[in-house]
């Protein structure tokens, strides 16, 4: 299991970033794609906005952008139809694969 996956298992979304290039690296990698130096890790603010969404069976899912530019797919919990641009908070976990869940604020 990678550091990223192990942290997800503990409910923490870690972002790899390069101190030299001042840039987030996503999907997570141990090296910077620009300068090839070792990347560092920082915790996500766990807040994002909905870029696009759809629904499968009775559950919403979609593409959400967190931490200025990191886009991920996850399930969306909302009592009403979500909207693009809506602010969401993120919860994460990991079993055999990552799970990202987004909750629409003011639900």
């Amino acid at each position, binding site marked *: 299991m990678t550091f*990223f996956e192990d942290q997800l298992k503990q409910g923490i979304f870690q972002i790899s970033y390069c101190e030299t290039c001042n840039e987030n690296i996503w999907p997570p990698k141990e090296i910077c794609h620009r300068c090839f130096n070792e990347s560092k890790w920082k915790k996500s603010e766990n807040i994002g906005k909905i870029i696009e969404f759809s629904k499968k069976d009775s559950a919403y899912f979609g593409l959400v952008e967190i931490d200025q530019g990191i886009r991920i797919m996850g399930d969306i919990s909302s009592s009403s139809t979500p909207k693009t641009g809506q602010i969401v908070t993120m919860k994460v976990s990991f079993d055999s694969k*990552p*799970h990202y869940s987004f909750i629409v604020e003011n639900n």
Partner: protein
Amino acid sequence: MNNVAIVGTGQTKFSKDDGDVERLLFESTKNCIQSVENCESKDIEGVLVSTNNNSKYLGAILSETIGIQPKISHSIEHLCSSGTNALISGYAYISSGLADIVLVSGVESATNPGQVLDWDKSRGSFEHPIYWASMLTKAHKTKFQTTEEELAIVSAKNHKQAMDNPLAYSNQPRTISEVMNSKQITDDLRILDCSRSCSGSASILLASEEKAKKISDQPIWIKGIGQKTTSASFTKNNLEEIESTRIAAKTAYGMAKVEPNDVDVAEVHDAFSVCELMAISELGITDNDKSGEFVRNLFNTENRMINPRGGLIGAGHPLGATGISQTIEITNQLQGKSEKRQISNLGIGLVHNMSAAGTSSSVMVLEN
């Protein structure tokens, strides 16, 4: 740089049965070699196998199966566009002078592992292609006012065209209404909007100009090639566009010295209905906001210009064989050998094949 031609083609039927890859490879290869009158197996100097299957050493296995000892043999994997990547590698071996005749064979079994890219952590638990396809479809509807009927026409058209392709996976005509009322996968995707992973194999024999003129009376020339990879992870994409296709097309048109409106026939990568609308726009054949209308017009006038063999939706999608099968269709169309689905007066044909939500694209321009 040597010119390169397609001189032979062979395929198997595409099927939902989980076929044996070595057997399928042999069948399409046999059909391919037998399609060329003046060529023997021993003349083949390179054997490239395109697949997502986990079987090892297939280039050497296929070579031994057909009794040859080629200079070059290996496998090529690039998810859904493995086939065109293998063809372009074969082109490069010949144009550089490393080989004169190269066999390119693609194969897949229905239960291949090529649909899921575990590396892409940005997809979370939504790893199946239906999820990115739902995002692209929703975004297309919102930005270009694309209707569900326009999306359904892509599938109805391609199913109808596949009826005249005896090797296609689907042999059922589907009306627009049947597509629109087919099982709902997500709010933005129905089952008949999706191509289906299946078993099948397709093979092409490529030759240098000198050899092609000796062994074929109808060589089809690869005049333009464009390839572009913008990322591996889906979520790097802008949902409203397929940038890799746009860039690859520009390169291919430039190399072939043609314009989009010179294209008479095209096989485009309709993994899902929305992909055909996006592809024909990025290829410059129509505009994004007119793509639905363009396809409706093709359907109403029974014009088979786009995806005459039925595309991925109608013919099926054996990943490693798809790009090669698309190229065979355009080759046969330019040779006038497409029987019931033959389009008349063709000069320039195009093949568009892509991978992983359009993060990588290949475009080839063919000419007779």
